[in-house]
């Protein structure tokens, strides 16, 4: 196919699959071995991949909502790129969850045909952002934490999870630089931007505790060499956040372990009304037109 004739390149196809958009994507793990490693509980592996996949899926959706609303075109492209990377991680992880579950479901069933109480992401992912400072504060916390977790999963005994993590670490390193540089720019900017960045860090702080709350699924899988315990990422996250706050001239927020975010944990399916809004938007078309192509 020649680059010289873009029109021919676009039309030179024997099937029309690429022109149809719907929920029926091809398996992103096509050809990757699907076995669950010996000694690993398949139900736990399913639950853990759902947790990590839902974190990425819901955070990606929140980022997509900023496209057309960001202060500059360059930031819309950045947020769209970060959202796309997270969506890719979500597709791989939900597909891995469906494989390990072995009940005939696929990534689309898990993304589009589950109810709110069946989602397993941390509540940090579903929060709405009051302004751009709130967005970059939340993004910084989320990607700093996720980078630390996935970095630990590169050595997982589940080879699929390890490969997804190794790929994600490279992407999240870029995401974290983007978020950190915005926090520094706003914190170290005008009096107004400093005030708003400080308020945003203060607002997100109580949501941090939930990220490290022990949970039996990752803890059991950590014993089997598959997962990292929820609490394990804390030291790295604290160190990075301290580094960014210092560079931004922001005081460390005064709170709180934040262990009890509104009294529930997203990992157990306890979510806020924010998730209902997200799912109404994200799942609406897929539920209204099952198998639809457009």
């Amino acid at each position, binding site marked *: 196919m020649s680059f010289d004739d873009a029109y021919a390149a676009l039309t030179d196809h024997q099937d029309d699959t690429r022109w149809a958009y719907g929920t029926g994507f*091809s398996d992103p*793990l096509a050809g990757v071995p699907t076995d669950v490693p010996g000694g690993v509980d398949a139900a736990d592996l399913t639950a853990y991949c759902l947790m990590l996949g839902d974190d990425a899926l819901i955070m990606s959706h929140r980022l997509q909502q900023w496209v057309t609303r960001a202060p500059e075109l360059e930031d819309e492209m950045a947020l769209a*790129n970060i959202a796309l990377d997270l969506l890719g*991680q979500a*597709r*791989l992880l939900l597909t891995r969850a469906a494989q390990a579950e072995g009940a005939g479901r696929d990534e689309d069933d898990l993304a589009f045909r589950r109810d709110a109480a069946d989602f397993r992401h941390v509540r940090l992912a579903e929060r709405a952002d009051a302004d751009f400072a709130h967005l970059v504060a939340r993004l910084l916390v989320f990607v700093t934490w996720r980078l630390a977790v996935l970095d630990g999963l590169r050595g997982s005994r589940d080879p699929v999870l390890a*490969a997804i993590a190794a*790929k994600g670490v490279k992407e999240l390193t870029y995401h974290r630089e*983007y978020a950190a540089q915005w926090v520094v720019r706003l914190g170290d900017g005008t009096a107004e931007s400093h005030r708003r960045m400080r308020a945003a860090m203060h607002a997100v702080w109580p949501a941090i505790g939930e990220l490290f709350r022990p949970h039996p699924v990752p803890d059991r899988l950590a014993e089997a060499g598959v997962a990292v315990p929820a609490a394990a990422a804390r030291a790295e996250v604290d160190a990075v956040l301290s580094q960014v706050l210092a560079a931004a001239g922001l005081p460390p927020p005064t709170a709180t372990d934040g262990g009890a975010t509104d009294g529930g944990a997203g990992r157990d399916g306890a979510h806020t009304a924010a998730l209902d809004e997200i799912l109404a938007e994200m799942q609406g078309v897929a539920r209204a037109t099952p198998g639809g192509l457009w």
Partner: protein
Amino acid sequence: MTGPEVVPAAVAAAAVTDPELPMLTLADLGILRGVEESAGAVTVRITPTYSGCPAMEAIRADLIGALRRAGHRRVEVRTVLDPPWSTDWITPQGRRKLAAAGIAPPGPAPRRSPGPVPLTLGARPAPVPCPRCGQPDTERLAAFGATACRELRRCPGCREPFEHVKEI
């Protein structure tokens, strides 16, 4: 079914171009990880550049189409995730083609040292020369460009904006 008109599968697969960087073949980009022919069936292994690479579906369709036109009816395209793609896998020929198209090729991918991934906070990365006039250093306009693998830069010499394939 084979005949004298059949092009070897490895040759046909290597000539397929990337939908987002169409000056590069999949082999130039380093995402083609293997082509095997066995008992009349072809297995092609590819790896995504980024987890969310939206071109994977198109690449899969392009490979199957190109191999069919080359005379191979039974084609399977498999995804390989490990080891993850690195810009270090872009071939020397691929780098020359990028530069000729006005896109600055990547420098060496970052080396990973033991311990947590360091946060650089924009500490000065290696300079990126201008692909048009050769000015040795240029400024970054945006870390995220039109596709996941590119960033947008500008040359202080010729004043032209250009894209750069980010090291990963």
